[in-house]
């Protein structure tokens, strides 16, 4: 037997991510503080710094990824988006003002569809931006394909999903991911996507069934009780405890995300290199639970401090003054600031204890096979950069 398969016997390469919350904290803290001070303008530079942190610490086969995007590019992308969205917003506002009540309802639905279409277009273009700014071993990722085609595809599938009450959702995911991956390139090596909607359907079906039981079950039981003896449901609160089952929903959702990620990663390949994912079912749930715990602790701390400050203000009579004056202005301004700071603190905790661990698990749960073959294939074609990066830099500001 001389038949030889490159995948067999070859050990895969497992990427790793080395970025601790402690190392990420200064980036997030400084970024969010400046975002507050500039009322949001800094967020593009902040996002860029976070991405640099996440990308630069992903190591694949001994070499780190590189993120070459810049804040100013995202900012320009945002301005372009504004240039498109503002007139659209104006038209929607104007038309809903002119049309009668019924016309307004019809029109709002049309506007919703238009917004979904635009959002899908933007998502595709943003993916392209991130890929073209990702470099590994001196070779750039790329994305071909048309944002408009992708948006049209998404919209068509979305309508089908609604018409079939969600039944075709797995096939929508497969179709859209196939479009994205076959339009993904690493140098001159094209990506592919081999997972099918049927596979996702099989894996997700049980969970979907569980959801139905959890949601419909208690309602059905209560309804049955109510039918037999009217008022029974209200009479015994114990029955209402059935709704505690609803608490299962977040768990189910997190497990589903893990299943879907595994399904997705297992289908991805670029050139001869293919991924194999062994993410545990509860891995994402662990992250969410951890984040929830951190948020709970943080909220308790904020509540204690806030209560103390309110008490002190109250004791000093600041809150009691009814006439507008500098004190009132100060309290109002302080309140607005506190609101922003708390909202942004939640965002910061999410970055540190949500985004970062999920990013880590996404990479570390994957094993890449056929990497040497990819390297060889890439090296055999010296005209590697089929896509002029100068043009990409100049015209692509799709990363809103």
């Amino acid at each position, binding site marked *: 037997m001389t038949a030889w398969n490159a995948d067999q016997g070859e050990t895969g390469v497992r990427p790793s991510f080395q970025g601790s919350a402690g190392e990420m904290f200064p980036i997030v803290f400084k970024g969010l503080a400046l975002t507050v001070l500039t009322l949001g303008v800094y967020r593009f530079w902040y996002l860029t710094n976070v991405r640099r942190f996440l990308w630069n610490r992903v190591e694949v086969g001994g070499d*780190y990824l590189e993120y070459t995007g810049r*804040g100013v590019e995202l900012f320009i992308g945002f301005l372009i988006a504004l240039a498109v969205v503002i007139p659209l917003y104006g038209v929607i506002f104007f038309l809903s003002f002119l049309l009668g*009540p019924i016309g307004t309802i019809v029109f709002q639905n049309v506007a919703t569809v238009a917004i979904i279409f635009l959002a899908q277009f933007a998502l595709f273009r943003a993916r392209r931006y991130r890929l073209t700014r990702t470099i590994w071993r001196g070779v750039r990722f790329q994305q071909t394909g048309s944002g408009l085609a992708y948006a049209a595809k998404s919209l068509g599938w979305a309508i089908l999903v609604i018409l079939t009450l969600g039944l075709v959702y797995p096939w929508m995911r497969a179709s859209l991911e196939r479009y994205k991956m076959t339009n993904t390139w690493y*140098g001159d090596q094209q990506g592919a996507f081999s997972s099918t909607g049927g596979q996702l359907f099989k894996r997700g079906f049980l969970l979907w069934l569980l959801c139905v039981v959890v949601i419909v079950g208690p309602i059905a039981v209560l309804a049955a009780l109510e039918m037999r003896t009217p008022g029974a449901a209200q009479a015994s609160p114990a029955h209402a405890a059935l709704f505690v089952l609803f608490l299962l929903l977040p768990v189910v959702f997190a497990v589903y995300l893990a299943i879907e990620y595994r399904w997705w990663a297992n289908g991805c390949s670029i050139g001869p290199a293919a991924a194999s994912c062994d993410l545990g079912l509860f891995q994402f749930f662990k992250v969410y639970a951890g984040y929830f715990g951190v948020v709970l602790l943080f909220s308790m701390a904020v509540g204690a401090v806030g209560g103390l400050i309110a008490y002190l203000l109250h004791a000093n009579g600041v809150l009691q003054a009814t*006439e507008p004056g500098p004190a009132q202005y100060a309290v109002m301004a302080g309140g607005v600031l506190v*609101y922003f700071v708390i909202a942004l603190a939640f965002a910061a905790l999410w970055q540190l204890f949500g985004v970062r661990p999920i990013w880590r698990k996404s990479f570390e749960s994957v094993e890449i096979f056929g990497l040497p073959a990819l390297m060889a294939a*890439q*090296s055999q074609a*010296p005209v590697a*950069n089929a896509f002029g990066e100068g043009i990409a830099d100049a015209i692509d500001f799709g990363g809103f």
Partner: protein
Amino acid sequence: MTSSGTGVFFDGLTSRRQDVHVALQDATLEILRPDGARLDMWPLGQLRELSAPPELLRLGHDGGNALARLEIRDRALAAQIRASAPRLTAALAEERGTTRKVVLWSLAAMVSVSLFTFYGVPALADRVAPLLPWSVDRHMGDIADRQIRAVFPTDPGGFECGASSEERPGREALDRLTKRLSDAAALPVPIKVTVVRSDFVNALALPGGGVYLFRGLLDNARSADEIAGVLAHEIGHVAHRDGARRALQAGGASLLFGFILGDVVGGTAAITIARVLSEAHYSRAAETNADDYAADLMKKIGADPRPLGEFLSRLTEGASEPEADQDKAGKTDDAGEKPTETEKRKERSLQSWISSHPESEERRRRVDAVAGDGPFSPVVDGADFLAIQRICGKPS
């Protein structure tokens, strides 16, 4: 000066990873294969440091393949290169400079935008509103009227009082009162008063001439002059185009803030707060102006303006009625929620400052000052007043 070490080289064309020997000559960095062959030579002046994980120095160079990378993990060599390449961090420094400019100018822009929102937009709205044709006001009023009739919860018996035969005399008496006021006001739009079957103590003016009186307000009135005063106040809002002005102002402010803030966390909340603050500031002026207008109008028809002030004070003092006469011209979207809003007003602290009406004692003093002391005659006779009070049937 010569120093050397090892590194990893990527040529930027293929993804081949090459372990290389790096030699730092006087003005160049030589990249050599293990067998000694020279792969590339980068002038030190063209070296650029790129973002990388902390344990390695990632170099690119200007003028060659933009994707070619040299990665150095040898700390000593990295320190040498850092010390001798003059423009190594120029790009990073430039980026930091840009970022600093962005931060500073955003702060400056925010100050400008805030000032413009608080002072510029209301001033512009003041100038623009009178230029709009009255048909704009009437159109806005019609839309608001339809919305309020659709959503506002009323007592059984229909939204509007004064239609049945029992209620007709009240309607006629109110029309006589309205006619005196509107003739004196001589606005380009007709004043159309609607009595709403609700025990809510309130009155409000729609843009373009519509005025709502809620039954609760009529129940609390002790004379026709008090009702006439409130009506004159609402006509003042119509005459001053406060509805259109408020729409322009709110639209302008949310446009400015909304577009600049974009989708940042809490952006919508910031817009709301900014709007509430600027509107509160602004509507106090609008209320005072409407009071002045009301006093003048009452004097013009020979009636006593002072009952308006008395009415306001009495309603505010009344423990059962926390605050009254919340007329929000043109602000129709929250009409359905007003009763609960009124309940909340029992807590008077920050909220009372935000609430759009100036303190009623202050308003009373102002109205009294305008009133002077002329010979006043009642605006309608006692029989008409009784009829008006029964416009929604027998008092409950």
